[in-house]
């Protein structure tokens, strides 16, 4: 029974992320975690839907939101989802350098998204005096979008940590599941964003 995790060209499995027992566990366990996250975000969405018109004479969704920035943020995040797919494609082909390259692009896109979100929030606060405390709508908006933003922030720290930690030693069966699980997380963040731009911004504009 060999417990050597390194990959040689001959031993490269089709699915390096699930080649070890630990990898299989991580894969399954993380999917289950995402199932739980679905409920977490659904509860936040539900709260937002219940409170989205409770503006307490403050600014309404229609007055606040501008679609241009949201569209740019959406494209940034969607593209970063594709780049992480590219990264996984190169992982399966055992091409570590290209994987790191695509992950790097993912990180840049993710950070740009975060920057835009911070700009957006400061714009609301300074321009409209619309804060976490100004109305139930404000609380619900910042909590829902902020939870998503928090997930993006955590994902960025995770990704950059992974890339730096493994930069020198390349791909092996020990870290392949870690990269794969990150990519799942990143896609899931995109899934949540699709509903945020639809439910919060677009539906906010429609009224």
């Amino acid at each position: 029974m060999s417990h050597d995790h390194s990959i040689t060209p001959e031993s490269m499995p089709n699915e390096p992320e699930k080649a070890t027992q630990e990898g299989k566990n991580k894969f399954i366990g993380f999917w289950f975690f995402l199932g739980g996250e679905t409920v977490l975000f659904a509860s936040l969405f539900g709260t937002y839907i219940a409170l989205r018109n409770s503006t307490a004479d403050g600014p309404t969704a229609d007055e606040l939101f501008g679609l241009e920035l949201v569209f740019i943020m959406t494209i940034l995040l969607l593209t970063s989802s594709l780049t992480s797919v590219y990264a996984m494609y190169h992982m399966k082909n055992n091409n570590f350098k290209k994987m790191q390259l695509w992950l790097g692009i993912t990180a840049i896109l993710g950070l740009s998204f975060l920057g835009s979100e911070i700009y957006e929030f400061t714009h609301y606060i300074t321009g409209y005096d619309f804060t976490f405390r100004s109305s139930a709508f404000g609380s619900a908006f910042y909590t829902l979008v902020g939870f998503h933003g928090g997930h993006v922030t955590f994902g960025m720290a995770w990704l950059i940590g992974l890339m730096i930690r493994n930069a020198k030693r390349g791909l092996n069966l020990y870290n392949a599941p870690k990269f794969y699980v990150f990519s799942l997380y990143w896609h899931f963040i995109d899934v949540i964003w699709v509903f945020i731009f639809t439910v919060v911004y677009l539906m906010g504009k429609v009224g």
Partner: protein
Amino acid sequence: MSTVAAQNRGFGAVLWDYLTTVDHKKIAHLYLFGGGFFFLLGGLEAMAIRIQLIQPENDFVSAGFYNELLTMHGTTMIFLAAMPLILGLMNAVVPLQIGARDVAFPFLNSLGFWLFMFGGLLLNCSWFLGGAPDAGWTGYVPLSVTSPGHGVDFYVVGLQIAGAGTLIGGINFLATIVTMRAPGMTYMRMPLFAWTTFITSVLILFAFPALTVGLFLLMFDRMFGSAFFDVGLGGNAIIWQHLFWIFGHPEVYILILPLFGVFSEVIATFSKKRLFGYTAMVFATMLIAFLGFMVWAHHMFTVGLGPVANSIFAIATMAIAVPTGIKIFNWLATMWGGQITINSAMLWALGFIPTFTIGGMTGVMVASVVADYQYHDTYFVVAHFHYVIVGGTVFGIFAGLHYWWPKMFGRILNEAMGKLTFWTFFIGFHLTFFIQHFLGLMGMPRRYWVYLENQGLDLGNQISTVGAFFMAVGVIVFLINIVYTAVKGEKVVDDPWDGRTLEWVTASPPAHYNFKQTPLIRGLDALWIEKTEGKGRPTPAEPLGDIHMPNSSFLPFMMSFGLFIAGFGFIYQVNHNWAYILLFGGMAIMLGCMLIRSLKDDHGYHIPKDELESEAD
């Protein structure tokens, strides 16, 4: 790793071993210890409640303190006693039952325990820091938002930390059961306790996030000035009720389903028969879990949701009686014609069936909307949920402890004391709670600290309090039994009950790697098949080889400790600036530990083959 060697080590070494362990069997000990400690605490609170109510207009405790007692009794018993004790049984048994050497995430398993423990400690620190939470275990807003002092803050933060631990534990068991089953152990060959653990973990996974969100909203409202529940700024109090019960009702099934598994094991073993209707039992469990998610609004009948919503939820609730009834009949049919041994474990199972059935029956009564307007917030409801939670969960935990004690600790609990525990507790339980149905029907509201005399409530309350003392005696006898067994008990054989499932093939207590060679499973009741058709032991599925084991780690303890510190920071930053030191310091400890865990490779270690060969079988 034998017990003798453990006794020869110093206390410090043993303590360090438990603080750093990632072995599911030791984590089970920790859960039993932690859960047991909080069970005694919750029991003391219950006794104080009953003493206060022994006579009309009693002044044993003040009104405010009574509110704290009833809040902490409910919160402690559900989150800090019942759930950890259940997780303890799961940790002790499930990996053995499915033929696994370990759980899927040993590190996370340990983290789950320490999060629960520190969450529970944080919650109970409130007693010494200006008063415990006093808004009821359901923490309904606006009462919980406006409750003065820091009591409810401790409720919010403590439950948040403990809840995270439970969620981690649930995911761990899901992954373990999906990926770690021994060769031949198909899903439909798993013992029923493994099945109910699996389904319970699914419920944990989908129910706890709703609580997490609810607690966050409450936390933001109380500590950071948001307006979710502030009607003046457009907030809505019903949101809390929905979120709480979307979590809260599945939680009821999280509390009971694992014990259904325990009873299925105990009844089959001591009837010397295969469980009647195994497949029906599995699907009934799934059905209960499924329906259990769709009935949360029956806790909110009197809120005014409207007749359509109320009717839908009433019918869905009554439908749960069907799969539960299937289970009751299957247990009875398992015993029918069996060779029944009545010992302490079996007594708890036998006591459970009528008790739980009464609880189920009153459940259907309160599910009827029109009648519920009468029952709501009276002692009838108190009686109902104690019949299901004590009659189901607590009886089940006792049954499981008596049944698996020899496997966990290598010693059998004293039978005479075991029976005494059962009878005092059983009689005491019915004395305490049966009469409360009638107190409720006579209109005694729950959560009131006094009642007036000459309203027909005096005698009933007196009887109820006397019953509570019987239950206390039962618990004390059980504690004496534990000490007596630890000191005087004889070493037990591997398979004292002539068991049917795989855990009884391992040593008592099992080696830390559980199985020297992974067993090959040939059917349901894996061990029983080998006893009747084979060599009495399962055939190994693999040649003897090196065994891969995870390394111990102190990080889970430190991470949870960091959150514990940060919890105080969150609570006190409202009115003290120094609290930010705690907040950021605690978070730094936790994130630092997470970083260490991420950056440091942990490949575990191997037990070499020759070492295994030299060890006695």
